[in-house]
């Protein structure tokens, strides 16, 4: 589904990714964990073409998408719920969802809207409310909902748990599992909350300073001593 080979990128002269190899198979949930500044967000954004890769390749559904402009890449069955959610603050919830559907077939809109509102009933009551006035949890739901409006084959999720109460985090992770299980959406998830992410994921990768240092099944990584010490704080996140 998504294959990344030797990917390098960065910002100006600062290189943030030093040759990343990752593969995500259709139907999987794959988690990428790592400390602050490891380059997780940079990796997801480089997949989307912004910043551009300086070396290496990205394949999406068998096609080489390296170097394509972002809006072209995003029209190939890829959706991104980015770090910080990036809800359009002065647009209503409905308009935010409409923006998510902008690259989809208008004939599917009503159906997709219903599907997303079924997943997130909280949004249904707030369709006319401005995005900027939603709570953090609601904004995260909107960000995921907006991404799903385009009927993606693969969903990139950047730290959906950031700043949310444990209960809301659990809700959101359950919904991600549901999207994957019932709608067959492949998920590539970036998290600092390594415990939850690895429990949810089929497989995981660990990133340190722009390099992948470990990979394995979610359970394997959760059991790993080093990971327990570094990312799980000895307990459960």
């Amino acid at each position, binding site marked *: 589904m998504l294959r990344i080979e030797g990917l390098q990128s960065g910002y100006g002269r600062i290189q943030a990714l030093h040759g990343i190899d990752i593969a995500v198979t259709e139907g999987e949930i794959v988690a990428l964990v790592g400390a602050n500044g490891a380059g997780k967000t940079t990796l997801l954004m480089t997949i989307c073409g912004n910043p551009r890769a300086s070396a290496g390749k990205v394949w999406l559904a068998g096609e080489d998408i390296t170097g394509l402009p972002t*809006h072209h890449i995003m029209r190939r069955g890829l959706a991104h719920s980015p770090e910080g959610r*990036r809800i*359009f603050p*002065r*647009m209503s919830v409905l308009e935010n969802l*409409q923006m998510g559907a902008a690259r989809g077939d208008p004939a599917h809109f009503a159906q997709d809207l219903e599907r997303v509102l079924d997943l997130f009933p909280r949004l249904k009551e707030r369709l006319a409310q401005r995005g900027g*006035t*939603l*709570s953090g949890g609601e904004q995260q739901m909107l960000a995921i909902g907006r991404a799903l409006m385009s009927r993606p084959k693969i969903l990139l999720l950047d730290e959906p748990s950031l700043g949310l109460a444990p209960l809301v985090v659990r809700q959101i992770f359950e919904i991600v599992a549901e999207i994957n299980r019932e709608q067959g959406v492949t998920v590539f998830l970036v998290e600092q909350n390594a415990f939850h992410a690895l429990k949810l994921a089929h497989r995981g990768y660990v990133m340190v300073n722009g390099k992948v240092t470990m990979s394995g099944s979610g359970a394997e990584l959760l059991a790993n001593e080093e990971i327990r010490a570094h990312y799980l704080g000895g307990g459960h996140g």
Partner: protein
Amino acid sequence: MEYFLQQLINGLTLGAIYGLVALGYTMVYGVLGMINFAHGTIYMVGAFISLITFLVATTVLGTSVPLALVLTLFAAMGLTALWGWTAERVAYRPLRSAPRLAPLISAIGVSIMLQNFVAQAQGARAKPLPPVIKGGVTLMDSGDFVVSLSWMQIIIMAMTLALMAVFTWVITRTALGRAQRACEQDMKMASLLGIDVDRVISTTFVIGAGLAGVAGMMVTLYYGVIDFYIGFLAGIKAFTAAVLGGIGSLPGAMLGGLLIGLIEAFWSAYFSIEYKDVATFSILVAVLVFRPTGLLGQPDVEKI
């Protein structure tokens, strides 16, 4: 009372023209955070295109006046829109990631270039156009003062209203308008949703320039005299209108335009016509001191 009413009509007419030009400033600012200093010049170019098209249509082609006016409208709108597109491609887009000052200077360069081109090609002297649409309706006649509304004023207000209505509909209700607002609020996110940001920016310039072109046409028909320099002061006043209404706010630009028109008309009528620009700009300063975001501009309510 009659005198007051007449000034109100004059002020609203003038304000409609400023409002149309102000929309272009505020739209470009909203999306790029850039003051397009060449925008006033586009209004001047619209005026010249109108003058030339109208004269060619009526004298060379021998078309009737209504047909000539329609042709003029299309030419003014179409050619200025094309110019807006070209200027963005050539002079601003390459500077998108340059320091903010660079596109600003580039815009001033475009503006001076265009002004001097028109001055050379068309001559620096003022160009007259004999009144095309004469007459009007008398609203009130108290014996010593007549309040009249000329057909031209009616056309200007009606056309401005129509354009603003269409424009508002496009921005608030259509996918194009949504994409435009999305780019204004978060360009990177818009591109992550498959929006071609460059195209949206081009469209913004095209719409803004087209509206300024129509304003240029109306001013030509209304005053019947234009020169290569009219874009400068009108541009600054329209920019003032945009700031007064709250830069980035579309209703603000329309409101600001009307207010500047009214202030100018009333000040000229009741105080002194020589000091009208002093008054206009003093009010701008006063409003900004007490309300830096302008009348309808609002500080964002954003989380995180």
